[in-house]
Structures are given as structure tokens and as C-alpha cells.
């Protein structure tokens, strides 16, 4: 039932144990004390729980632990620690209201920014992330400011 899974979290090797079907987010929040990743719908539809897997954005609420073995996981904690310019731009633009969706948006947007994508492509990709407060325009303005 329970298996031990090793992966790299924000550059450090970690091991967690749990059922293979347990979604990654529960390992992050429950075992690794990485509480920055937000649980939203639990079905991969809202994007609030977005993290990166080998540099690409994925939803962690429906990503089974077995699928991350040996791979690189990135979370908001690393983006904040690295002082990513998007974070300051978001604050400058007051690009959020309740902010519950924002962590997942930052994870998707920074992954795509770092991969050199432009703001228009990122806007399309962000359809995978829902924002209910209606801060989309401000978020896009912040992204456009830091996109090369």
C-alpha cells in the first residue's frame, strides 16, 4: 500500500511515503511542510495547486506520487526565495485580491517566462488557472512587464 518515493524538491532530495495514488500536493503540504501550494478543486480543473515538474507546470492535486519519483518538483517557496521579478511586479500592479489562485498562476507564469514564452502565449496557457476575483488584467500587466 504505502511506498517510499524520492524526488527533488526545489533542488533538495526528499523522500516521502504514502499510497502510490496519493496526489503530490498532500505530500508537499502534509509531509514536507511546504504549505505554499494551495489545494483548490482537487480535480486538476482550477490550477490553484500548480507546481513545476521537471520545469513544466502541472497541477499537483491530481498528480500521483508514483509519477514524481526521481523527478524535479518546484514550488512557490523556491520562486519566493529566488525573488523572481514577477513577484515584485505582481505586488506593484496589485495583481490579486484574495490571492488564493495566485500561487498557482505564479508557478505557471514563471515556468513559461523562464522558458522564454511571450505574454500572449502565457495568457493562453493561463486558461488552465481560474481567478474568481477578476484580477486577470492586472496579472497580465505584471507578466507583460517582466516578459522579454
Amino acid at each position, binding site marked *: 500500500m504505502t511506498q517510499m518515493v524520492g524526488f527533488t524538491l526545489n533542488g533538495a532530495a526528499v523522500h516521502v511515503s504514502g499510497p502510490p495514488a496519493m496526489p503530490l500536493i498532500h505530500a508537499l503540504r502534509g509531509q514536507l511542510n511546504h504549505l505554499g501550494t494551495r489545494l483548490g478543486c482537487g480535480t486538476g480543473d482550477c490550477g490553484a495547486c500548480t507546481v513545476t515538474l521537471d520545469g513544466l507546470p502541472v497541477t499537483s492535486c491530481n498528480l500521483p506520487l508514483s509519477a514524481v519519483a526521481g523527478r524535479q518538483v518546484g514550488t512557490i517557496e523556491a520562486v519566493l526565495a529566488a525573488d523572481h521579478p514577477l513577484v515584485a511586479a505582481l505586488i506593484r500592479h496589485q495583481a490579486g*485580491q484574495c490571492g488564493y489562485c495566485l500561487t498557482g498562476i505564479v508557478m505557471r507564469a514563471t515556468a513559461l517566462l523562464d522558458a522564454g514564452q511571450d505574454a500572449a502565449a502565457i495568457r493562453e496557457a493561463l486558461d488552465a488557472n481560474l481567478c474568481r476575483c477578476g484580477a*486577470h488584467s492586472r*496579472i*497580465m500587466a505584471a507578466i507583460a512587464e517582466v516578459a522579454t
Partner: protein
Amino acid sequence: MTAPQPIKDFPRVDQWLTFAPDGTVTLASGRVELGQGISTALIQIAADELDVAMTAIRLIQGHTALSPAEGPTVGSLSVTLGGQSVRIAAAAARAVMLDHAAGLLQTAAADLTVREGAILKSGNDTGLTYGQMASQVDLSVAALDHGRPKVAADRRIAGTSAPRVDLLARLGPGHFLHDMVLDGMWHGRVVQPPSLDAMATGLGDVTLPPDAQIVRDGQFIAVVAADEYTALDQSRRLSDTVRWQCSPASGPHPVDALSGPIAMSETLYNTGDSTAGVTQISVSLTKPPLTHGSIGPSCAVACWNGDALTVWAHSQNVFALRASLARVLRHPVDWVTVIFAPGAGCYGHNSSDDVALDAAVMARAVGRPVRALWQRQDEFLHGPLNPAMTTRLTARLGPDGRMLAYRADVISPPHSTRPAGEGEPNLRGQQFLSDPMPMGPGNDAPQPQGGADRNALPGYVIPAVRVVRARPAQVPYRPSAMRGLGAFTNVIALETLMENCAAHAGMDSIAYRLWHLDDPRACRVIEALRDWPIPRDDGDGVGFGIGYARYKNSAGYMACMARVVVDDAVRVTDVWSVADVGETINPDGTLNQIEGGIVQAISWALKEEVRFSGAQNLTTGWADYPILQFSEVPHLHTQLIQHPDAPLLGAGEISAGPAGAAVVNAVRDALGVTPDRLPLTRHALVALLA
């Protein structure tokens, strides 16, 4: 201006503000931060009046033991009432402090000023600070008897776009209630009974792991576990095996219920000669039930310490929640403390209060703190829903086209079933407990606030006005108060009526509205829209429309123009808006609220409907309930008309009605037919044109 109610109810300075020797100021507010920026605005107001840095202020919000019991954080009233009360209290605190300093310095208080908490005399440091005097000054004095708030020209912090004090923290760990961990805390998930009359006849064959247990109290069933995933996983297993006996969902579809039997009808307003005029023009608008759609599911933490219960909740009204919990749990209210902690945006009465009861029941059963979380599916299926409603309007016009008589028939369940403490507690779990309490029907506030009928009373000058509210006999869901309540539907209906009347009169949309307005501020937002050099193209499927309202006929003024392109669906490309909310504490925060309301309104108008088959709710996930996405959000162009000396009118809910109206009128412009049913999906467009 007259003092707002909160400062009358909590008249002492020290009920709002206390000073510490280290120079920090603690501001206690009953208002809560729902993401609307109220904490930043309140701190700006207090810092400005006190002449301290914003960083010197520590804000306590929504704490039943520490905050003034101001009531709910609703209705765009937080700065209008709560903020103005903080301003009066802070001005008084500054005056009392300066009086004390003047005594110590043997000078006149008028010679003293404050800079960052330091007392200056003729601009020079006196060595005295608020912190030093903190223990010497008695602030248990009536705020209204001391000091006066600054005039607008003297404000330095209020009126500026100070950055949100909490936004960065919201990005990281530990800010949301969802991240709160208490010693020995377990995690709980409710297995939601499928209906109000459901009886669990058996739990089925479930074996729980050692660090998990089932909580059962009557028909209230939950799994509590040391680990959050175990609680989730086991609650899903249990919900698959538990056998419920319940009657099938019966009764009409929520929209059909609006044209079915009426339980109650009342005339709320009736003046003038309703038969005046020579031409009659009617419109109707029906909106389906909507969900609040918080991105984070509702969460609460409960901890019993002997008989004392402490609950952390992202409730809009911790005071009513406290009384409601005490009533449902048959527990003395003095033994219950409710403390606000941040959740996801709620936009009104969602499940945030319900989950607080769930947490308290689970924590009581397992004898340890419990963090309870609803699941997204629960929010769709069992959370309160913004009710379906129909608004039918009839205008009678004189020979010149002027509106002489207006009648509104608003058919809707009441929009408020909020927990009301000594009234109806209305927490979903209460009806399932072994000592159950039935849910109440809720109510609508009287005009001028109104509920379903909010903004059904037109802001236009019309000699004869009649407003009738009717309540359908039966609706298969729990109605909620969501951002603007009935105003969204009523404003859209009224603005489509104005458009049709203007067309009949052969007048321009804006000129027709101005002809019916006598409030200069109302005229000014519309004129600003008129004078804005908005490029008007007329390509295939392009339409432009406008919408205007003064929210509740007493709060902010707002006029919008929308541009849509209609092909196989409706796309809103641009919204131009002008708003007047009186004084603005934080202009950028105000714009953010206005923009958010516009985006939400477009989403409601174009996409949203909680889908039912008959009385059975079929909506379980976001795939069933699309909302506006990044690629669909229009360009927003928004102007604020500022009045630093005018009263604060509030901003959070003013834009949904006018923005929705602008979009619907733009679709009318593109298609030549007035929409009568939301949402304006492809299916609805086909039906409209049929």
C-alpha cells in the same frame, strides 16, 4: 455628517485603538479582509489620522473577544461605516495623546504635531512619543467628544494607492486558514448527506486506519484523521459505502419555479399614477442560480478547551457565527470565541460559516483540534447558491417618450439566509445533528437596501413607481446573498428597458438617460462616458451598449460601455467605465474592486449557471460550471471621479449591475433583440433569435 453606527455602538477610543510602549498601535476592527483590500484601507485611515507609519499599526480583524461587534462585512459598507468609525476613533486618540503631551510639556496642544508617532513642538522633537505615553493616557473616553478627523487637504496616506499590506503574504505559506496547524490537530472531511431529509441506514463495510475515525452525530457523518490525505481518502470511501434513505429531489427546476406557484407577494413601493402615459414597453430578464465559486474550498479550525470553544473561520460575520454556533451546539455563547482568518474570496454568503459548525462538531467528538475543509463538489452541490430570479419591468411613456410610470415585478427567493445568531442560525450541518435544528427561510432586508429587490427601485426620475416582490413557493437549494444580491439582475433589466424606451422615443441612449436623471453626480459619470473618445466601429457582429446605476441608490455611481463581438458566441472585447465612489482611501484598490466586479459580472452574464435536472443539482465540478478565463477577459478602461471631501460610498459591489447591463445592451445592439435570459451562451443566442 452624522456619525456612523459602529462608533455610536462602540463609542470609546480604546474599543478601537490601543498603544504599546514600543510604539505599535493595535487597531481592532470588526470588518474582515476578504481580499477586497479593507485591511490596507483601514490601516491607511488610522495611520493618517494618528500620524504614524502604516507599519506601526497591527490590525485585529473579526475577533469576537477583541473587535467591536460591528456586524457583517457586506454591502460595500466597510469603509463607509467601519472605516469612518476608525477615522473618528483615531482622530480622537491623537487629540487625547496631544492633550496629555501638552500637559507634560506645559504648552498648548495646538502647538504640537505628530510625526511617525513622535510629538513635535513647532516642528522640533520633544522627546515624547505615543509609545512613551501609552501607559499614562486613558483612552476609555468617548471618541466623538475628542478631536476631529483631518480635512481632505491634510491627509497624506488616505487617498494614496499604498500597496496592499497582505498581498505578498498571500502568495506564500502560512497566511490562509487552510495552512493553520494547532498542536495535536487532526483533519476532518464531512460526508455530505445528499438531501435535507437523508437518513443514514448504514455506513457499509469500512475499516479505517489507526490514525482515523468516523464521527457520527445523528445524520452528520465525517472522517477525522491525523493526516489530511487520509481524511480525504477515507471520507470518499465512506461516501461510497454509506447507505442513505432519502426522498428523491422533487419539485420544479429553479428557473421553472419562478413561473410556478407564488408563496408570498408584497408591494414594496407604490407611488404616483400607474396608468399615466400612452405607450407601454416591457422587458423581462431571468437569471439562473449561480455559485460563489471560491477557488479555495471553505475551511475552519475548531478547538475545545474544556467547555470553551474557539473557532477560526473565514466568516463575513464572526459575531453572528458565534451566536449561531452557540445556539446550534446548545452551548453558552460566552464560552464561544470566533476569530477571523483569511480564506479564498467568497463574494458573499458561501459555505464558510457551514464548515465552522462541522469543525466544532468534529473537534468535540474526537477531543482534539480539527481543521475541516469542504470539497469543491460540496460547494457546488451543498453550498448556498445565488438564487434564480426573474425581473419583469413595464414602462409607460408619454407622447414625447418620457417615462411616466414604471412597474417592477421581482420574482425570487429571499437572498439572505445568513446565520443570524438569535434568529436563524442556518448552518447546513445543524439539521443533521442528533439534536437537530431546522433551517429557516431567510429574508430580504427592507428598502433602500433590499435583497431580491435591490436596485429594483429605479434611480431615474419617474413620477409613478411600483415595485412588487414575489417569492416562489419552493426552490430546491439554499439561497445566498452574493455580491450585489438582486441588483445585478434588476439593473440589467432596467437598463434594457431604458434602451428600448430610448429607441421608442427616437433618442440617443445617453441623452435618454440624462433626461431622466436629476442627480448631478449621476449625470457626471454618464457624461464622462459620453465625452470619452471611445472608437466606435461597426463590423460584423459588433455591438456597443451602456449601463448605469447608483448601487442601492445610495452608494457608488457607475456608468459602463461595453463592446462585444457576437458570432457563434458572445465575446466582450472592451469595457469603458466611470465610477464615483466619493472619497477613495486607496484609488488603485478601488479600481481593483471595480475591475473585479466587471469581470465577475461578464462571467455571470455570459457563462454561468448551476445546472439542474428538475430539482436535482447536477453541477459537481468546474467542468460543469465554466467561468471567464484569462483569454476571455476584455480590455478594461476605468476612470475614477474623485471627491476627497465627499462621504465614502463604497466600491466593492457597484460595478456588477452596470457592467452586466452594458454587455447585455451591447448584445442587443449587435443582434437587434433584447436578451431575456442569462447566461448568454451560444444556446441562449440561438433561442433568442428563433
